[in-house]
């Protein structure tokens, strides 16, 4: 049965329509497998070949991939959540209750978004520390490390701005505690805090500003930086393979 399925797939790949979409037939030679990467808009930033050692678990634990997968999950669940959300007080809180009691699978949707958000913060930190210990910041990877640090900051801000959106006690006081720290900035502290909150306290304006940051501005930054980050991995010659790995010793 597997064979008949495979031959059916093979026949499909030989069709005119398949070739018109993917710009190639079946990827069964090194040439067509290269085409599969650089002839595809969504994959063309990847290298055509990768070192076998960089595919091993200990080379990366796939932490960068995991961070990106979590970002995609957050993007999709976030769009679904936007259909049920009003960034206004106290409507935002009522929307949370609606998710709980009215919307089909609403709680599940929110659980998944929240879980992925916490995991992403965790994965991005872990990714950074792992890259450091592998020496992945060394030339020629310097700038990509800097992009990575910026991505860590964007991730933290994304998570933090999302934290306010349920508009419950937990959200309100967590953001109050956090934004009070900004006032400690010399000279401009109160002004920066006012700019962020749209007022002197965490209120309706703050909710709207955090919402816009959370769903438009920060994701836009994240997408651009992720693009640069991935593209630079390829341009800088792939993952760092340590001399120890090169000797063939484990």
């Amino acid at each position, binding site marked *: 049965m*597997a*064979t008949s399925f495979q031959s059916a797939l093979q026949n499909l790949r030989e069709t005119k329509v398949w070739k018109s979409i993917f710009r190639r037939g079946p*990827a*069964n030679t*090194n040439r067509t*497998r*290269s085409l599969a990467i650089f002839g595809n808009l969504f*994959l063309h930033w990847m290298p055509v*070949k*990768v*070192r*076998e*050692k960089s*595919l091993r678990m200990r080379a990366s634990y*796939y932490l960068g991939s995991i961070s990106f997968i*979590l970002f995609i*999950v957050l993007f999709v669940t976030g769009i679904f959540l936007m259909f049920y959300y009003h960034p206004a*007080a*106290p409507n935002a809180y009522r929307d*949370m209750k609606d998710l*709980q009691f009215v919307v089909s699978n609403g709680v*599940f949707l929110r*659980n*998944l978004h*929240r*879980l*992925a958000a*916490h995991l992403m913060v965790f994965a991005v*930190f872990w990714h950074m520390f792992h890259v*450091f210990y592998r*020496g992945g*910041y*060394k*030339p020629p*990877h*310097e*700038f990509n*490390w*800097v992009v990575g*640090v910026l991505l*860590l900051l964007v991730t933290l801000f994304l*998570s933090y701005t999302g934290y306010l959106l349920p*508009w*419950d*006690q*937990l959200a*309100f*006081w967590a953001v109050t*505690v956090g934004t*009070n*720290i*900004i006032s*400690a*900035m*010399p000279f401009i*502290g109160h002004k920066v805090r006012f700019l962020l909150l749209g007022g002197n*306290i965490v209120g309706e304006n703050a909710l709207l500003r955090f919402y816009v940051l959370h769903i438009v501005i920060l994701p836009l930054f994240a997408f651009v930086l992720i693009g640069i980050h991935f593209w630079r991995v390829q341009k800088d010659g792939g993952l760092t*393979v340590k001399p120890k790995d*090169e*000797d063939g010793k484990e």
Partner: protein
Amino acid sequence: MEKNKIETAFSSDAKKEPRRVVFVTKKTSAKVVGERGPQLMTFPHLLIREAIAFQVLVIAMVVVALFWDAPLEQLANPLLTPNPAKAPWYFLGLQELLHFFPPFVAGILIPTLVVIALIVIPYFNVNIEGRALWAYHPAQHLRTMLIIVLILLAFLAVFHAWTIFAPTALVATLLVLSYTGRQAERGWLKSLGSKPLSWWIMTWFIAVSVCLTAVGTFFRGPGWSWVWPWGSHAG
């Protein structure tokens, strides 16, 4: 042709690759870099692994999300301050710092310095080959390190910052152990003894961050007093 493995259903892999012969840095002479090992085609070898990572992760998250509900407390009320009011977990390390140092130092100065330090890491072109801290002048290096560590510990003790003191003391102990065991033939002492200074600084930073975050998350109660996570208290 073997059919049981997805990857072997495809034809041969890349056999040739451009070879780097020498790697020259400012401080080292030309150094021959060994073979970088065989290469595989991204399609399908890397893509199949990414796809598996995606599926495993999403399935695991769906299972957890089915059973673990996101918390939802009462409607936000500016007049009712919970005690303690806590930030999200990844900022609780900073909140713990606020307990010891003035807001400007804990909330602005230290985070800014940490971010700057992280950004400039790759631009310090010192010790690019990762030479061990004890490789040259070990006694002199140990003396310098001990002086720095003792000043740091004294400073932390003055501020009663015991949750920073403890991980710092732990890493310092490991540092001294690695000095005494630097000539070990094998085992964890040998591996510790071969670590460069940058490794020690990052490990210290991670140890302090993890300790502060864990304490802030699990061990702080009303008025930021010490509580045990298994003890019950009227919050």
